[in-house]
């Protein structure tokens, strides 16, 4: 029973992290159709900012958390301004490849100016504790991750449903042209989308730094691939789909970890992706995606 609870918490925590990152991807995609491969690098920039701040004498973990989240939001907006605005109205493939290029550039800038090797960041290690609740040993980090992700998602839903800007964003995901006709600035809506996406990535980055205690140039990339997979499972562009897909992916991974014998542990990724591909054979539009026939009206 302990073991089961432990693994359940594991799955929930993994799922929460994937959901956060996948939501960041989905927010941007739903509004401007950009498949943001550079999302992982937002996480990396946020983590490296903390690394630099610590090197410059930052000591408070709370400030480090704040810095990570703010840096992620700022860098997301900067990516949009510098790299993605020139290809805003281009076909999806163009935007996707641009983002892929940005991701490669940023990763290699860290290799070039910092190091290809992992750099230790221990400022947030304090969060990574074990709580003992009766007979159970619970990772505080995992509980916090789950709670913070839940709070963040609720806040995002409230923002999208209650605020004017949120309303404009939801409308823009349906029909951007009409939103602009209503007098809403396109740049503002898109900047807001990137700020939200970056903030979500920053929150994920805090937990990643706390768990790993180190940063590497490609730390965001593999995570973002998983988040993409989560988006595809859930139905690309659907926010609820991204969150659900992230959770499902967490459960699949932990499930495989439990089910696979030790010597096949290295093949976990293989089985994860194979399962997902199999899922897509039966539901090509994803779990919560809408089946679109050619010529359907965009509603």
């Amino acid at each position, binding site marked *: 029973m302990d073991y089961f609870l432990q693994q359940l918490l594991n799955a929930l925590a993994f799922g929460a992290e994937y959901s956060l990152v996948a939501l960041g991807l989905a927010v941007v995609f739903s509004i401007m159709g950009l498949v943001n491969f550079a999302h992982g690098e937002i996480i990396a920039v946020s983590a490296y900012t903390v690394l630099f701040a610590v090197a410059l004498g930052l000591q408070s973990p709370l400030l480090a958390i704040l810095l990570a989240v703010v840096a992620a939001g700022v860098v997301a907006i900067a990516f949009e301004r510098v790299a993605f605005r020139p290809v805003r109205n281009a076909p999806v*493939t163009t935007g996707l490849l641009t983002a892929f290029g940005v991701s490669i550039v*940023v990763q290699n800038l860290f290799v*070039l100016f910092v190091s290809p090797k992992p750099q230790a960041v221990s400022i947030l290690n304090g969060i990574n504790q074990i709580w003992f609740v009766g007979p159970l040993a619970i990772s505080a980090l995992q509980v916090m991750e789950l709670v913070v992700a839940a709070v963040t998602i609720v806040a995002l839903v409230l923002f999208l449903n209650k605020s004017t800007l949120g309303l404009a964003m939801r409308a823009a995901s349906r029909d951007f042209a009409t939103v602009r006709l209503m007098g809403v600035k396109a740049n503002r809506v898109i900047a807001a989308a990137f700020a939200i996406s970056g903030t979500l990535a920053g929150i994920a980055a805090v937990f990643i730094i706390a768990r790993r205690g180190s940063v590497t140039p490609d730390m965001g990339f593999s995570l973002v*691939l998983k988040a993409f997979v989560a988006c595809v499972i859930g139905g690309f562009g659907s926010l609820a789909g991204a969150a659900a897909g992230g959770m499902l992916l967490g459960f699949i991974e932990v499930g495989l970890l439990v089910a696979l014998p030790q010597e096949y542990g*290295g093949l976990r990724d293989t089985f994860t*992706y194979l399962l997902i*591909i199999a899922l897509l*054979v039966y539901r*090509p539009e994803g779990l919560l995606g809408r089946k679109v026939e050619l*010529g359907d009206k965009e509603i």
Partner: protein
Amino acid sequence: MATEAPAAVRQQARTPSGSGRSLARATLGGIVIALPVLVLAAVILWFAPTYYVRLATVALVNLIIVVGLQTFMGNSNTAHLGHSAFVAIGAYAVAILATPLNMKKLSIPDAPFGLSHVVLDPVVAGAVALLVVGVLAAVTGRIIARLSGIAATIVSLAFLIVTHSTILNWTDLFKGNQGFFGIPRVVDIYWMLAFATLSIVAARIFKDSKYGLQLRASAQSPQAAAAFGVNAKGLRFGAWILSGLICGLAGILYAYFVGTISPRVFYFHQVMMTLAMLILGGMGTVTGAVTGVIALSVLLEFIRGIESGVTVAGIQLPQVLGLSGVALGAVIVLSMAFRPDGIAGRYELDEQIARLFSRRPPASDPSTATVEASRELL
């Protein structure tokens, strides 16, 4: 928007109809595109030291990969990030099948299916490897063809990761992270040139064929193409298999050329590099694939020189790792922002030459072109 024929159809409309003549024309076009490669290779063979011959041979491997990538990506306009998986499968298939028995006793003594006791002639092994690639391409292609653009891209990436992690972790068969050595080195630059030319011509014939035209039309306007009765899924499936086979061929040739392979060669670095080459040259045309490979191979060689630390005015500069990566990413971003059609643009080399010499105005009347194109499509 729907009333105007897609540009690909308009452009095609000027070629003479009749499958025999267009086949000959496409073949000739392919040879024209391959000519600069052959000339460059000849210059390198005659004048440059052996080191450059080796570099040129590796560049030819990249050329075949990029041509294979173009076959799917250029015609279906879907980003494909998993093509290196086919390169890896081709390379590892010949490594397992053609490596001499005494070498296999050292490297993979416990291979499943009795493969450690099998050794095939390199040509037969190559053919079997292509068959393996073809079967895997058919399996994955069934899925890819069903998915829409972005999901297809993500699944192609997932396929790359699955392949890589299988090769890395199934050590009994693939030897894992360590290099797989002892593959017979039977391919030299002449063979590579021959197969590169063959790939270019094959890609060009496919692009100019009825199927390539229909696929490009369906990529530009799915609705209009579907209204013509174009079977987009089937065409994507076919293009995926052809693309996989060409990439697999590149892997086979690479393994036969270097003799030692390891999984990380066929991973993200190769994907990024070949993708940057195709984008820089222009993914719409086979000419673009060739142009991009030539331009970026030269650029990367310069950068590699700087990366390993150069001596400027007597001062030894330190190693700067990551510079080539920054350059590759920058090439992709800048091409996409300023010249999404790439260096080569929308026309193949032979078409550009023909346009140069033709006295006709370059663009024919769209309305008549549409009629011609619709005839040709049906």
